[in-house]
């Protein structure tokens, strides 16, 4: 079966500073992997490379079989990104934001209208659809941001510290959406500092430290979060 993400010898250098060093990673379709690591380990850089926001210094990345440097537009179509930034326009309403991004992803007409209504309902913002995003609280922005990321039904979800700014209600909405049948088949790669939450959601744990994967294993190898923390905690410093 074709991997959802296939990374070979991936490296990234900023100036003279190597941030990622010859990474290899294969993510199977439907897998939920979480990347833990200390600050500056290269976690966000890894997501930015996979999402085509930046170009690698060396190596290759394939998303759903598309090379990120040769077919970036096809790769972007496959990706939904949820970041700690909301990626929303404050002067537009919730609905207008989703309209804009939907059209940019090639969704139009009735299909887009239905999708927007469905997502606004799921994130609990249906009554705020016509209000400007600048009037929203941080938690509401993050909920809308979840809707924006899922709008085009991406096959790969990249989650960069998704819990930042999420209130408990929004966290629950987020987790329920990830577990919903619609997204169970999609591959998820999450970067997080929140060990407990990340561990609870994922199937596979990766630890990135100083630009290299120092651990790659499955959650089932641990009896629970405590054992994971005891065995792998030292790799996170």
């Amino acid at each position, binding site marked *: 079966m074709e991997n959802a993400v296939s990374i070979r010898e991936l490296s990234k250098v*900023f100036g003279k500073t190597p941030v990622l060093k010859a990474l290899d990673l294969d993510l199977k379709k439907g897998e939920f992997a979480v990347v833990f690591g200390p600050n500056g380990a290269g976690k966000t850089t890894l997501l930015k490379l996979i*999402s*085509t*926001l*930046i*170009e690698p210094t060396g190596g290759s990345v394939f998303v759903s079989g598309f090379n990120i440097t040769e077919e970036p*537009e*096809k790769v*972007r*179509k496959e*990706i939904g*990104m949820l*970041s700690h*930034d*909301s*990626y*929303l*326009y*404050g*002067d*537009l309403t919730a609905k*207008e934001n989703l309209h*804009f*991004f939907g*059209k*940019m*992803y*090639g969704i139009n007409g009735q299909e887009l209208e239905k999708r927007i209504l469905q997502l606004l309902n799921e994130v609990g913002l249906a009554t705020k659809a016509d209000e*400007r995003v600048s009037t929203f609280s941080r938690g509401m*922005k993050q909920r809308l941001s979840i809707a*924006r990321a899922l709008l085009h039904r991406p096959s790969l979800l990249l989650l960069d510290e998704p819990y930042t700014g999420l209130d408990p209600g929004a966290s629950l909405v987020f987790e329920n959406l990830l577990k919903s049948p619609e997204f169970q088949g999609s591959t998820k790669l999450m970067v997080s500092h929140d060990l407990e939450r990340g561990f609870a959601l994922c199937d596979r744990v990766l630890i990135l430290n100083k630009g290299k994967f120092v651990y790659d294993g499955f959650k089932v190898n641990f009896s629970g979060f405590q054992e994971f923390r005891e065995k792998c905690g030292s790799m996170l410093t």
Partner: protein
Amino acid sequence: MIRSFYIAAKDLKAEFRTKQMLNSMFIFSLLVLVVFSISFGDFLGDTEKVEKLAPGVLWIAFTFAGMLGLSRTFVMETENGCLEALMLCPVDRGAIYTGKILSNLAIVFLMEAVTLPFFIILFNYSLGIGTLLLLLLILFLGTFGFIAVGTLLSALTLGTRTRELLLPVLLLPLLLPVLIPAVEATAGILAGNSIGNLIPEIRLLAVYDLVFFVISHLVFEHVVSD
């Protein structure tokens, strides 16, 4: 191409809602005209002197007011990481540049459309339809070149702390090849010249627009990437 229109429509919707950029551009361009017309008060009856000075004044007003808008072109994209969101969309980076050009053109043209009648009144011109259409052609060609380069430089200076200062410093020297023929052509039109006498200026402006649009379109991807 359709996605460039979506980007432009989104920018215009946001701008017309707040009118931050439009208001400051209108006020600035009108102030420039008023200040110059007061300073040249003694000459305003002297047609020969007005014909020499007025075209320059008009383009000074348009250029500096336009620069106010250009410096804010990408600011809304930096709030909440929206530029990243745009870059994540499955579109060619050039489409983002074209979208930004379209929205900037619409806003600057609107500012020019409001400023021009004030210019005509303050500098005692009376223009026929033919002259006005010719003037609009020159305004279009000059403004397009200005916006093509300005939009690229606005993206280039985005990450700098002194963006508002850096943009005019980089932009004005690059604008000289478009400003000189635009001012000369405007002077020619206001003096009553026909289109036949303005062909060299029109040709220069068209070539500048085409060259800078194509170059900017091609290099935009590198400007906005890491």
